[in-house]
């Protein structure tokens, strides 16, 4: 598995202060469970994303601890309150030094 990959986020670019916004994020990752075998019977070692963290202007608002039972190309939908304009950052970390990130700017009026 490569050490980084694409991650795509859907979130509104603008919102009213106090409005609840929905965030959807997906990342490209095989999430090799560690339970599969090759055709020759060799165990394919576990290689998964372990952690997802979302920060809003530097403050953590959502986190997920992932295990092998999360489907390949993980997708998470969650929500947060639009408090102020700024940047939401999304970070994935996993086995074998895997790391990927993306961000989205929001204007809150």
């Amino acid at each position, binding site marked *: 598995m490569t050490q980084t*990959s*694409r991650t795509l986020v859907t979130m509104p670019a603008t919102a009213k202060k106090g409005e609840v916004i929905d965030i959807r994020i997906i990342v490209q990752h095989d999430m090799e469970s560690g339970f599969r075998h090759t055709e020759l019977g060799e165990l394919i070692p576990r290689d998964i994303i372990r952690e997802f963290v979302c920060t809003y202007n530097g403050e953590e608002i959502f986190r997920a601890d992932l295990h092998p039972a999360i489907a390949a*190309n993980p997708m998470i939908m969650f929500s947060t309150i639009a408090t102020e304009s700024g940047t939401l950052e999304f970070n994935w970390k996993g086995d074998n030094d895997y790391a990927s990130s993306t961000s989205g700017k929001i204007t809150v009026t």
Partner: protein
Amino acid sequence: MMPLKLFTCFMVALFGLSGIVFAESFGADRQSGYALMSKQTQAMQDDPLQNPATFWLLDGQTIWEQKAGKKDVSCAGCHGDAEQSMKGVAASFPKIVNKTLLNLEGRINLCRTEHQQALPFKHESKSQLSIATYVGSQSRGMPIAIEKTPEISPHLEAGQNIFEQRMGQLNLSCAQCHAERAGLKLAGNTIPQAHPTGYPIYRLEWQSVGSLERRLRNCMTGVRAEPFAFDSQEIVDLELYLMWRARGMLVETPAVRP
């Protein structure tokens, strides 16, 4: 006890001597595998940000713009903007190119070797799937357009024969499941009519994007037959027949399927 003649007619009608007993669905009776999926899986296909195939599409876009081969030219170098030049292209494949029947992957590889003088993409490689997804998606929403020309007719006939021919240890033909029994259940799944409207697809079973050839080879393994080789005449003929059978239906590439 009904008269023997009537009974024989009844049994023939029920089981058939060979080939298809129930009439193939035509026109509006045809149904994409999409219709059999749950709302959640349909949403996964409809929304590019929920569809993992988007990642392959983006990689395909990168390949489109990347110079390659001894000629050091990219797809974009000749074809420009794919959204313009590739519009409707995937919907018309397989087709005859220089007297050879080629599917989309074969046509792309012809470009690779002849015009870029680069090595052809290997089947089911990430590169091939990505570029096929990118080019295929330019036909999304357009009707499949395969024309029955004199040139293509022998291949079409060959493909139809394969579709109707029993094969494998289970001695089943494609038609027996996908024409006669479409809509009924097999091992908890509803049997689709097998219209390849969305290839390359993200298949939940594969947890990855894969080609129509891969899927057809799966089916053959499923009836315990030796699968046709990648790029074999049989497999491309069968692809042609399936696409012709689905003509007029809308392209869904990249689709999601269970």
